């Protein structure tokens, strides 16, 4: 390193090509000869082996078995499968009702006078299953008479054009409102609901109360043995509430007209 004509004090520095040349030579010699025995490389080999050994064991024992649902470092997948009981339609419906319906129809199912119609004892609720299914799937718009009072509002759709509930959830909530608060309607099964949804999913506009009564298909047979009891219960309901003539007769008309059609 003899560069004395530099204006800066670079005489004590390595020049760039020297840096490279020296180190290139060092690589050829591998180790500085004067050291004789180099402790570091041997220690590094042991260290490297140790780290690999520990790392392998640590990943296997604390890696959550590489599963997406292993979050605890000591996670061990259990083969104990959880029992999956079917919830009854009523229980499913209760949850859906609390989540989606109580704001308008209220916890007691009585609605808000003049604004949101009641569900208790309403012939719409206890009547033809297809009517209910239509309302839930596509929503309902305009004037509707319930228990003798006229309401004018918007029932949102819960089918694919609206909140997109599953058939089982709609079936559940319908079964719930037909059986809670002293209502004594039948279950609306998931299969029935699937059929209705296949028919009405494509429709995008809400129903009006006049439209609802048109083109109804026959009520599905209730799956359980106590079909007759259910139906007779229904009829009893219709009969016993004679004071709400208007709605009930309208409801009967609805069914009649449907029967005439078919």
């Amino acid at each position, binding site marked *: 390193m003899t560069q004395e004509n530099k204006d*800066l004090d670079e005489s004590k520095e390595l020049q760039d090509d020297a840096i*490279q040349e*020296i*180190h290139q030579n*060092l*690589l050829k010699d*591998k180790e500085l000869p004067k050291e004789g025995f180099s402790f570091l490389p041997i220690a590094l080999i042991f260290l490297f082996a140790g780290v690999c050994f520990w790392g392998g064991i640590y990943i296997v024992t604390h*890696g959550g078995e590489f599963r997406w649902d292993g979050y605890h470092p000591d996670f061990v997948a259990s083969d104990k499968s959880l029992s999956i009981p079917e919830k009854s339609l009523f229980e499913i419906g209760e949850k859906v009702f609390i989540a989606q319906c109580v704001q308008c129809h209220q916890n007691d199912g009585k609605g808000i006078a003049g604004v949101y119609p009641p569900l208790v004892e309403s012939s719409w609720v206890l009547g033809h299953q297809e009517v209910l299914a239509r309302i839930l799937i596509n929503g309902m718009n305009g004037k509707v008479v319930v228990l003798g009072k006229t309401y004018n509002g918007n029932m949102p759709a819960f089918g694919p054009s609206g909140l997109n509930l599953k058939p089982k959830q709609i079936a559940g909530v319908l079964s719930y409102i037909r059986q809670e608060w002293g209502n004594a309607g039948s279950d609306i099964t998931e299969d029935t609901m699937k059929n209705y949804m296949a028919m009405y999913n494509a429709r995008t506009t809400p129903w009006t109360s006049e439209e609802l009564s048109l083109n109804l298909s026959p009520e599905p047979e209730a799956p359980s043995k106590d079909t007759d009891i259910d139906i007779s219960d229904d009829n009893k309901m219709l009969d016993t509430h004679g004071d709400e003539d208007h709605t009930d007769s309208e409801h009967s008309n609805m069914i009649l007209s449907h029967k005439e059609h078919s």
Partner: protein
Amino acid sequence: MSVSSAGSPHDSLNTIDNSINKAVFYFILSAITWLALSSLLGLIGGIKTVIPSFLSTNEGFTFGRIQAMLNTTLLMGWCSNAIFAVAFWIMARLSSTPIKHGGILLIAGVIWNIALSLALIGIFIGDLTAYSWMEFPSYTSGIFLLAYTLIAVWGIVTYRHKQNDYSYVSQWYILGGLLWFPWIFVIGQFFINWVPVRGVLQSIVHAWYINNVFYLWLCPIALGACYYFIPKLSNTAIRSYHLSALAFWTFVLFASWSGLTYLIGGPVPVWLTTTSIVFAVSLIIPALIFYTNLIGTALSSFSQFKNNLALKFIIFGSAAFILHLFVKMGLSIRSVDALAHFTMIYEAHHWHLIYGFFSMVFFGAFYYLVPTLLKHSYKSNVLPNFNFVLSALGIIILLVALYGAGWQQGTQFANAELSFLQIANDLTFWMQLKLVGLTILFIANLLFAFNVVALLLSKLLDVLPNFSNDEINPNT
């Protein structure tokens, strides 16, 4: 050892230096401007943690935005410009090749700084993202990328066309760093801003991004500078140089895999963090080699180290880096992380890397580079030496304050009786200490900027009277 290059080695050095003179000075000046701005922002942030209502009436100065602007100016302003200034020069010197098209480098540099200014305005008016160290608005990321491509391509071209047969480890680090950054940047932007993934996947990409920007961009280039300047300035070969290749490959591989330790205990599958823990602990291998290579070399020529300003900075930075790596290994251990997670220890760890290591190495590099390029040295070393003392002191106080604060927070988190309000109140002493550290750093950084600019001006004053003379005879 004889210097065996064709013609006068000085002529070729001058050609190389002159080929990027203008661009390098542009980057140096931008770097120190952004550094000054970032230390001002740091100071404001520091005051806010002591007096929360300070400057709180204006939305742009709220703590979250100050923090975002601070991170952005530090990373995209100071660090990037410093890298552009130093990396190309080292690359050109070691490859004995002048940088071609220095003009394009300059234009790209201007574009980069325009993108950064846009980003800062964007953050100020509220366009920041939710991700630390990539808070710049997504509409600036394309401009950054364009400018970066125009800049980095010259470093790679220079290495490809190098005029000698040597391949020194500094060149590997710089080439790697230049190539890795755009890739990390694109992956981060792609999965977070351009085609966003959802949920914790974003956090996983973000952790990977931060970690790789730090350890596969800032670290390699600063290490490249260390491997270049330490043997050069101490006039000694690197100790155990044959291990440096092992250190290079193990460091970049292990560090790149170690990023998800940021998410230990968080809502991610545990195998991700476990894998990163193993790689983070494995960093002990490169850390030991770095110790021998860098610190070992410096200690064997201690007299040089005491008297050489640039070397002092660089050795301080290297020592801080090795300490940083050991802290990283420690933090990756689950039981330590249980205490350190969510505390200021992580903030301390970032400052440790950026100020303790990166900035100190680059201060040293600038103190070597500027006089060399200007061919004009300091008449007195008092101010630069004072700068070293101030910077070192400021960093040590800042780190003590933040690590101390974090430790105290961690022990108090474990005690469920203590409310968060109580824990925050107990931090007052440490926050004040942090403010002291930030103030000292602020002064030190201004002094650094002053020293560089003063040297430039004194050179200009020297040159102006006999300008033509200097042009003809650049060797004197």
